[in-house]
């Protein structure tokens, strides 16, 4: 047991002290801060950029209404009387940012064409199009003699309420909030497993490729070593995650109140957080064992990627299913898949987060998950024990077989 703590401590401290780790953490923190302030940043770069658009109005009537309704913070319109070719040349020479030509079609409704040097930036033409659409609607309405009241009736949306009858089912508002929280947590789980699963496998493969493993396993049992590594890397990841979370939380609280409220973090019940934590940890344990074992099978760090690809695909598939399940948490497919241990952490969490799941189902999925982890640990320890002594070409299934064989008599 003592040596387990040694391996754990060693893994944790050396990983944490590594320059690469510190730099990645710092960069990610900066990105998080940036993301939380994205609105401010975009505004900072775009606020003084006004688009100057020249307008040739052949209808002689639309320009005034257009100028009145267009967003003047972004677009300045100027009516010109030049010829079309001349105006286009002026756009080319940079005198105007764009040229709008208004005309009437045969039925007396407005038509427009927009000319600019590039049309990659959609904002200006879209804004103009929006305003023109409104004008056209008003014009058509006036033509057939609709009053403004009639217009208002025409455009009024249908009152549509969704009400859940089940007693502890979530109300629509709650559901929306739960959905965004579940989404965020699922995404966090997914990122966590992808990022640190790879780290786990690389960690083991590095020890193996540097051949220090043989000394290690001669002084500490492979099982203790495996767990010391898994928990050590888990603590490193949690530390990093905690830093990200703290930075993100502070940044959001300070600058991004809207985003915070949108995610609905304020009024989410405690039980979701508890479920999230449990599924998160068990999910990590499951995949960490898998990644560690795969890592122990390769003898060069370069081979790690290809060795862990199957496990990666499993994680990605789980995430895809979970994403599709966000809008149909009660479909038979999702319910069924939530009992498959490799999908349980994400899918069962999704279900308990969005709908009320019978306790026995949760318990069953837990039991299956725990059993799978136990089996995986048992097999993993065997493969690991043999795998760390094996060097050479790679073929995962053959290697696994051979590794288990090495632990036999």
């Amino acid at each position: 047991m003592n040596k387990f703590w040694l391996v754990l401590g060693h893994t944790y401290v050396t990983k944490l002290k590594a320059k690469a780790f510190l730099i990645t953490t710092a960069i990610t923190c900066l990105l998080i801060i940036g993301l939380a302030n994205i609105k401010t940043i975009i505004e900072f770069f775009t606020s003084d950029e006004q688009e100057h658009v020249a307008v040739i109005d052949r209808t002689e009537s639309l320009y005034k209404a257009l100028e009145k309704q267009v967003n003047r913070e972004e677009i300045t319109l100027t009516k010109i009387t030049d010829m079309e070719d001349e105006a286009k040349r002026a756009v080319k020479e940079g005198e105007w940012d764009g040229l709008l030509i208004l005309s009437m079609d045969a039925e007396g409704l407005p038509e427009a064409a927009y000319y600019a040097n590039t049309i990659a930036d959609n904002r200006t033409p879209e804004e103009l199009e929006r305003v023109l659409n409104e004008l056209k609607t008003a014009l058509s309405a006036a033509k057939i003699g609709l009053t403004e009241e009639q217009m208002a009736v025409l455009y009024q949306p249908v009152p549509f309420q969704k009400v859940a009858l089940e007693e502890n089912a979530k109300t629509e508002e709650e559901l929306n909030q739960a959905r965004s929280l579940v989404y965020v947590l699922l995404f966090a789980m997914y990122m966590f497993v992808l990022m640190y699963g790879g780290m786990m496998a690389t960690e083991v493969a590095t020890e193996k490729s540097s051949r220090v493993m043989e000394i290690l396993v001669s002084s500490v049992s492979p099982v203790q070593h495996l767990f010391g590594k898994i928990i050590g890397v888990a603590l490193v990841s949690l530390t990093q995650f905690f830093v990200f979370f703290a930075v993100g939380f502070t940044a959001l609280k300070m600058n991004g109140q809207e985003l915070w409220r949108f995610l609905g973090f304020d009024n989410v019940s405690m039980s979701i957080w508890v479920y999230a934590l449990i599924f998160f940890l068990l999910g990590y344990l499951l995949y960490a064992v898998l990644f560690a074992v795969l890592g122990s099978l390769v003898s060069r760090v370069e081979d790690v990627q290809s060795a862990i690809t199957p496990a990666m695909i499993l994680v990605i598939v789980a995430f895809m299913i979970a994403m599709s399940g966000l809008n149909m948490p009660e479909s038979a497919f999702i319910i069924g898949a939530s009992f498959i241990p490799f999908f349980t952490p994400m899918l069962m969490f999704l279900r308990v987060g969005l709908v009320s799941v019978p306790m026995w189902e949760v318990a069953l999925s837990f039991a299956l998950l725990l059993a799978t982890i136990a089996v995986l640990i048992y097999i993993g320890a065997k493969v690991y024990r043999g795998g760390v002594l094996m060097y050479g070409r790679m073929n995962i299934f053959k290697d696994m077989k051979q590794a288990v064989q090495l632990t036999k008599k």
Partner: protein
Amino acid sequence: MSLEIIDVTKRFGQTTAVDHLTLTVPEGKMFGLLGANGAGKTTTFRMILGLLLPTEGTIRWQGESIDYSKSHLIGYLPEERGLYPKLKVQEQLLYLGRLRGMKKADIVPEINRWLERFHIRDYANKRVEELSKGNQQKIQFIAAVLHRPNLLILDEPFSGLDPVNVELLKEAVLDLKRNGTTIVFSSHRMEHVEELCEHVCILRSGQAIVSGALRELKRSFGRKNLLIRGEGAFEELKDFPGVLRYNQTAEGVRLQIANEETAQAIFRHIADRVTVRLFALEEPSLHDIFIEKVGAAYE
């Protein structure tokens, strides 16, 4: 008490790596395991350490099987050298020492003592990857002996070292032996084994071809080499009874003879006929024994 390997066989699927091997390594002695690549040396070591389980047979150290509860008593220098490349020498040795059950406070003076002894004191705070290969090997050796093991297993300890460092390491190994450490080491160099070990075993395809106390082996081998230098007619010794092999050298002859009595007879015989400058009876070399047993030159 001693290290006993009793009728041990290890098979990997179809191949047999170690074939009914029986060895006894007396406590406090040095044991040499000789063999070409693939002869089964590393597999034997891994079985002694409990990294691999024997297919058949038992291995006991002081009457008990070796497991992780005894890892503080055992030191191991694997053939495949390996250390954490990014870790500093001191940190590295601290970690490996603690894994062998040492206390931090006890390790530091021990590390300094060894670094001093190997003249690499200045490297304590360098990362291992910055060290030369020879120096890395010294660190590896220190990692194996830091915790003063009772049983030390050295897999090819001298390979890849320059002669100066080989001497340095040999001295260290002999010192450990003087302090009572039982040492098993493998080599594919006969002279290292012959120089250091009281007991030897030559492995070929997993089988012990020659095994036992070196002195005993040499004595029971009987045949000795007789080196004579001088002037005169040596040719007649070719057919002298008891002479098994006759080699003319620049200054005399080298004979392989059946026993010591033959040497006496030859001495009397040539006393009047030849001017003798040197008459030396040599022990047979391990190499001679090997050739005799296997019928082919070693490697």
